């Protein structure tokens, strides 16, 4: 790809319409990734600008826009803020130092938005201030003098309504002018740096100079802006990373001394920065912004009163969650059937082209089976992110967190954890991806780690099979309540119930320390922008396909290989070929087809028992015996670790039925009921069935989920932790269940 002529950073508070502006400038072609080492989204887009503003026909240049995370401040307290500081100061590897900055501000809330602006202009980069939501300013009775602000702040100011695509041409023109302004003019803008203004006392300048001098003397290249952040940011000294190790101890003592001197001079770190900057903002905007003392009531306020109402707010929230949950499980079913049908078509095509053998088995059982299991989740992910996109963009998402916060905080999370956990009932993958909306790192980690306990849709087939085969069909309340339904519901709820103590323990022992905060802006409601919503859905789908798809592919090929080798498949391949010829012949002998199919499946099940997977099954048999399982169940469970729903097909293969088995297959049900131990007792008792169901409810049998956890936490530690804790929990749970049920119903 060609090199961009210039890089522009786009930064602003959350809820300022930054995504709308980004989309309006760059169109749909955004590239999304993660910054190295952190889970902060790295989003870039490109646009073409004429090089010469006065001559639109002049050649155009490719400009790259870096969309920085929405943040209220550059004080590096969160990963988002640290990334913004690094990108803006050119310290982020792989990102060019920006040539200019666009600060987008909510024009209806100027003072608080100008706080971030006051920090950004310290960098001395050419800066453009965009006042967005301009269309709402007058309806709220607010008056903003944009020209006056431009003069006072020393930067160009453009007014836009980005969601209506108003003012975008002006933004483009201003960018061209900004990129072409000569360095001398830019330097003059530095005069207006807030830290150089009278609101920042001289002693602060002196300490900055002192520190800067020492750093230059120690051959550390650092800008004045970074030195100031070093001095002010006590919470997380992330700029320290650019300091060589042998200097860190001295830096720490120098900082402590400097802060001590500042504090005794009446300049307390860090709080004075905020007060000084707001004083600077007040002096710069004096007479330029007029706001009525009482905000005129808007439709947004009325709506808010209802949606956060004591009873109605809760009712609306529950109904909305029900709607989302139903859509993920029910609406997604159609596209999932299409994907399944398409997979079947591709598999049939391959089978008609390639004769039986290892290559065909690899393609059909390994690749299509594996990649297919990933593709199956796509409709659910798309639907969930469509809802999340709409709810976030219209402003309800923060209200949902507001409504649920008290309850979720009592079990160690925050209100923002609710939706991700709720959607994990459909599938943990979109649920874990949705935790990006949780800004507190510890709350987010706890949510990610308990999300796979929610009963996802892939567990349902296992429950249905076990319940149908082993729970008697007893009806209560004149047929309205069935015992099978009650057991099914209990199994579905088990994970969520277990998640409550797990979350509490995680918070208590692994993620203790500073209490989480819930300082959150409740932005005005607005109509969601479809462009923003759809581009977000598309970004998520892409990320899911690329990252999770590669690893699940490798895992499924490995499991296929373990089940295929080292057996000799020559005989079964020959009989499969004969069987296929017989089937396609004119007027085939049906009885013979059935007989051959049976013998092929018998041979296949023998081969699985001889395979590496089968050997592993015999090795683990003593381990699974206490759970009431035999070796066959052990193998099936082992094979289902990459994807739990695989157990149905594996049981089918092992019980010699062929792999085209589903949970409603009556023959599989009968085979399970008929299975016997060598001494003639049935393998599957009620206790065994419950033990298997509890194991599946609690176990981390999903490679895609583990890969998603790795991607979202940027570390292999957490997927390994999830796997170990959930598998242990599942084993203990299944053992307890088996023994308790055996005691109760011998």
């Amino acid at each position, binding site marked *: 790809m060609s090199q961009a002529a210039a890089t522009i950073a786009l930064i602003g508070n959350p809820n300022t319409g930054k995504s709308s502006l980004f989309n309006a400038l760059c169109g749909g072609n955004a590239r999304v990734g993660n910054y190295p080492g952190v889970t902060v989204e790295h989003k870039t887009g490109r646009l073409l600008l004429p090089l010469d503003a006065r001559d639109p026909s002049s050649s155009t240049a490719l400009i790259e826009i870096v969309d920085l995370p929405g943040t209220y401040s550059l004080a590096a307290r969160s990963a988002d803020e640290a990334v913004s500081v690094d990108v803006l100061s050119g310290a982020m590897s792989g990102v060019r130092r920006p040539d200019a900055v666009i600060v987008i501000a909510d024009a209806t809330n100027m003072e608080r938005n100008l706080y971030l602006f006051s920090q950004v202009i310290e960098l001395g980069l050419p800066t453009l201030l965009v006042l967005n939501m301009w269309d709402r300013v007058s309806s709220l009775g607010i008056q903003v003098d944009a020209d006056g602000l431009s003069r006072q702040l020393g930067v160009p100011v453009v007014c836009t309504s980005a969601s209506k695509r108003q003012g975008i041409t002006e933004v483009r023109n201003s960018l061209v002018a900004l990129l072409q302004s000569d360095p001398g003019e830019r330097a003059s803008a530095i005069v207006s740096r807030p830290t150089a203004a009278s609101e920042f006392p001289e002693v602060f300048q002196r300490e900055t100079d002192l520190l800067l001098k020492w750093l230059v003397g120690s051959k550390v290249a650092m800008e004045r802006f970074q030195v100031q952040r070093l001095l002010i940011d006590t919470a997380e000294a992330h700029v320290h990373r650019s300091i060589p190790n042998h200097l860190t101890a001295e830096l720490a003592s120098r900082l402590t001394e400097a802060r001590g001197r500042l504090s005794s001079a009446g300049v307390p770190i860090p709080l004075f920065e905020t007060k000084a900057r707001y004083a600077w903002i007040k002096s710069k905007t004096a007479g330029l912004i007029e706001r009525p003392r009482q905000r005129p009531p808007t439709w947004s306020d009325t709506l808010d009163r209802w949606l*956060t109402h004591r009873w109605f707010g809760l009712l609306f929230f529950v109904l909305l969650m029900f709607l989302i949950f139903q859509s993920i499980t029910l609406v997604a079913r159609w596209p999932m059937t299409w994907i399944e049908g398409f997979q079947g078509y591709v598999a049939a095509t391959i089978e008609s082209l390639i004769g039986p053998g290892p290559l065909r088995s690899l393609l059909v059982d390994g690749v299509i089976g594996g990649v297919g299991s990933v593709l199956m989740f796509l409709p659910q992910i798309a639907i969930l992110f469509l809802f999340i996109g709409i709810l976030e963009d219209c402003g309800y998402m923060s209200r949902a967190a507001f409504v649920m916060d008290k309850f979720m905080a009592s079990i160690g999370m925050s209100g923002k954890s609710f939706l991700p956990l709720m959607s994990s009932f459909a599938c943990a993958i979109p649920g874990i991806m949705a935790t990006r909306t949780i800004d507190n790192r510890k709350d987010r980690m706890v949510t990610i780690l308990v999300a796979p306990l929610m009963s996802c849709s892939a567990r349902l087939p296992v429950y249905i099979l076990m319940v149908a085969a082993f729970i008697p069909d007893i009806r209560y309340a004149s047929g309205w309540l069935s015992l099978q339904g009650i057991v099914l519901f209990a199994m579905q709820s088990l994970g969520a119930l277990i998640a409550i103590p797990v979350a509490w323990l995680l918070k208590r022992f692994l993620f203790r320390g500073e209490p989480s905060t819930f300082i959150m802006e409740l932005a005005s409601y607005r109509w969601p922008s479809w462009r923003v919503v759809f581009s977000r859905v598309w970004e998520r789908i892409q990320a899911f396909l690329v990252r999770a798809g590669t690893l699940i592919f490798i895992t499924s090929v490995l499991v296929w290989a373990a089940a295929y080798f080292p057996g000799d498949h020559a005989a079964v391949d020959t009989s499969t070929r004969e069987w296929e010829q017989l089937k396609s012949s004119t007027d085939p002998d049906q009885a013979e087809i059935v007989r051959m199919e049976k013998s092929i499946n018998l041979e296949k099940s023998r081969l699985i028992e001889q395979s590496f997977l089968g050997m592993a099954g015999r090795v683990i048999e003593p381990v699974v015996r206490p759970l009431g399982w035999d070796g066959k169940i052990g193998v099936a469970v082992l094979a289902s670790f990459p994807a739990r729903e695989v157990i149905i097909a594996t049981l089918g293969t092992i019980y010699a039925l062929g792999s085209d088995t589903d949970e409603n297959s009556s023959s599989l049900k009968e085979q399970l009921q008929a299975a016997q131990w060598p001494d003639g007792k049935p393998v599957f008792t009620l206790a065994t069935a419950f033990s298997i169901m509890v194991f599946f409810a609690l176990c981390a049998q999903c490679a895609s989920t583990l890969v998603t956890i790795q991607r979202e936490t940027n570390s292999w530690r957490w997927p390994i932790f999830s796997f170990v804790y959930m598998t242990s929990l599942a084993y203990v749970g299944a053992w307890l269940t088996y023994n308790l049920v055996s005691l109760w119903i011998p």
Partner: protein
Amino acid sequence: MSSSLWTLCDLKPGERGRVVSVQGTDSLAARLLEMGLLPGEEIEHIGTAPMGDPIEFSVYGYRISLRRDEAGRVQIEKQR
């Protein structure tokens, strides 16, 4: 009137106050100040969440949600 007796938690729905100070010097205090809860600013209690916590306030012309223990850090003087 001794203003230090009141915090944001003491406001009832619809009542207004003026920020006197934010207690503490930790990152929570810094964040509260950054969000515009500065001494002298007027703040109004809009309503509470269905379970009584957190609380919604209006300050600087926008709406903010604070948990009770966060709101308790902000000292105010009540206004008519």
